[in-house]
């Protein structure tokens, strides 16, 4: 690990520089210069990709000194004959936010959907490799996909509440999984979930109004409440704020910050600023390969890879 200065080995001075550079990233100015200074010494992207393909443990097993909730090794995903994900190995820590970034079509959403086997519903999709949730291979048959999805909740890009009441939206998961013994307990779960999703105060007087009648941001928080209601360990978020206005986005980001105290969160985002704001670690995907993974500050301020740097500074993507 000592050879890889990406996780813990950040000296105070570097950190300060990083912070400075990151502010520039967020401001969107002067980034190119900062990035080009850092560019020398970074191996050619192709070479690195090769190394990953061979499964070089130094690269394939990123530093993860917290408890890793999900460990993936050599994941390949195919849609028919077309390969969408190439040999991705990524560790996802518990009680933290992992952001997956990358240009459109880079496979980050596909990878996210492997983590709760949502790709199963696509007939032509085939997943190879090892994905372990707390050490148990989720594709081995040891975990039923139905139970897996209760443990690994998901929030989608477009808010998709059921065309039912707010209460029913949240109560549905606990009900089908038998998490509540009686009505009182179910009411309790609904209330706690809505509180955790910071929606309770806005909807407590109209729990039986249709969920589809809420605003976009409220709908997305309702979807988060619905995901929380099954008491998951992991929450996957596929661009959860891309359909929302800035104010609603800010509320969702605040919420993500709250939720990471108790959950392992994996978020796919197109917004670099969002990744920088909410995540603890960031993984950069490009053309189906995991290019780089590390603490968010380091990935944004001192990326090891030129491609990462080009992407976050807006040269492509």
């Amino acid at each position, binding site marked *: 690990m000592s050879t890889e200065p990406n996780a813990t080995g950040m000296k105070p001075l570097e950190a300060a520089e990083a912070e400075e550079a990151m502010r520039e990233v967020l401001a969107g100015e002067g980034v190119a210069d900062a990035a080009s200074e850092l560019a020398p010494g970074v191996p050619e992207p192709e070479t690195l990709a090769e190394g990953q393909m061979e499964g070089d443990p130094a690269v394939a097993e990123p530093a993860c000194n917290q408890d890793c909730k999900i460990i993936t090794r050599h994941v390949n995903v195919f849609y028919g004959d077309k390969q969408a994900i190439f040999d991705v190995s990524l560790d996802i820590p518990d009680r933290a936010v992992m952001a997956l970034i990358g240009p459109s079509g880079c496979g980050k959403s596909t990878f996210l959907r492997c983590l709760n086997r949502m790709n199963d*519903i696509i007939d032509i999709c085939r997943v190879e490799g090892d994905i372990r949730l707390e050490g148990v291979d989720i594709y081995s048959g040891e975990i039923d996909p139905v139970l*897996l*999805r209760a443990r690994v909740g*998901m929030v*989608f890009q477009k808010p*998709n509440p059921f*065309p039912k009441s707010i209460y029913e939206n949240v109560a549905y998961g606990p009900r*089908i*999984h038998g998490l509540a013994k009686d009505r009182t307990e179910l009411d309790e779960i609904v209330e706690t979930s809505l509180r955790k999703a910071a929606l309770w105060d806005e909807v407590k007087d109209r729990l039986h109004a249709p969920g589809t009648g809420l605003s976009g941001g409220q709908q997305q928080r309702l979807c988060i409440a619905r995901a929380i209601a099954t008491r998951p360990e992991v929450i996957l978020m596929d661009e959860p704020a891309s359909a929302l206005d800035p104010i609603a986005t800010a509320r969702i980001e605040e919420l993500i910050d709250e939720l990471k105290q108790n959950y392992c969160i994996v978020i796919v985002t197109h917004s670099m600023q969002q990744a920088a704001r909410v995540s603890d670690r960031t993984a950069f995907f490009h053309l189906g390969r995991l290019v780089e993974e590390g603490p968010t500050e380091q990935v944004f301020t001192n990326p090891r890879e030129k491609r990462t740097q080009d992407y976050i500074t807006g040269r492509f993507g």
Partner: protein
Amino acid sequence: MHHDWNSPQQLARLRRRHAANRRMKWIGLAAIGLAAGALALLVISLVATGWPAFTQTRITLQFDLDPKLVKPDDMRKGSWRKIIKTALLKEVGPVKSRKDRRKILKIISRGAAYELRDHVMKHPDLVGRTITYAVLAADPFDQFYKGVIPEYIGEGEKRFFNPRLGSPVVVAAFRKLIDKGLVSAPFNWGLFFNADSRLPEQAGLAGAIVGSFLTLLVCFLISFPAGIAAAIYLEEFAPKNRFTDFIEVNINNLAAVPSVVFGLLGLALFLGWFGMPRSAPLVGGLVLSLMTLPTIIIATRSALKAVPPSIREAALGIGASHHQMVLHHVLPVAMPGILTGAIIGMARALGETAPLLLIGMNAFIPDISNMGILDPATALPTQIYSWADSPERGFVSRTSAAILVLLGFLLVMNAAAIWLRQKYSKKV
């Protein structure tokens, strides 16, 4: 250099484009006008011909219910025709010729005796009293009173007395009844509540309506659940392979098969092979459900396909199993589309004639008191077919009236489809 948007060529081009827009609009309007005109013509001609059938000429007479003639012990053996004859002659006045008397008696329908008998059987306390009761006029006089047939046919030299009305003496007697204010034409409830009859003035659609209802009930109970189940399997569970492709192609082909073929299939299969009763609504319903099934399957599949994938993902994403996703989320959202498809399929089945004729569902049903799904029956379209074949003048207007009733039922069903669709869509 900038393009000159105001050049003559450019302006001419713009004019041509606007002219094309207007042309398109007018062609569309003309097409709609043509369709609406054809529909209006159909409805107007039906109403014009069928209108007289919605009223029925009746003659109000004083009937002396003498117990000697009524025979209260068994009224079926009573001399009802004699009671009617006495009552009629009392109003018309003495008629010398026996032949004329017999002809005058034909003003009253032959069914009147049974009508009067049933009325007295229902109210036995009337026996021994003199009652006022409006009895059915016979068909020619019914038509004559409504102005459908004239007293004299032809013009000038060729002008001759309408033989349907018996003789001028009879018409004179009928006129006398009219002058006394005894003839009236109230709304014809019998059209809806009477069973079929050989006498047009007595024939009604009750048997056909009950038969159609039972047939559609059987059809619905079979094709609705089976159609939805088949569609759910094909759309949600079946693997996509050659076998399911083959099934899909065949379902689409079945939807296009002429209905008479289904009738032949029903005749061979249900009547020939299984030995089911002829003319029964059960068999009619089975045949129609074969015909409706592909329609419902196709409608259900497209309704299921139209459910946004986000709802499926939402359900699966919180750990719903496949069948929970389908039953709890996809099906309720697809329901308006499914119901619309089903009702339109049922409406088509309601109007279907050929398959019912082939299995003999054009039975003559003069009594509707015990109609079951295994008893011989008739249906609205086959009733129309039978009546259209009858020579009596009264059946001409009744045929049109029956078509109007059938169209009315179709309208109600389609309105129900729209209502259900809107009701369910609002909930979503």
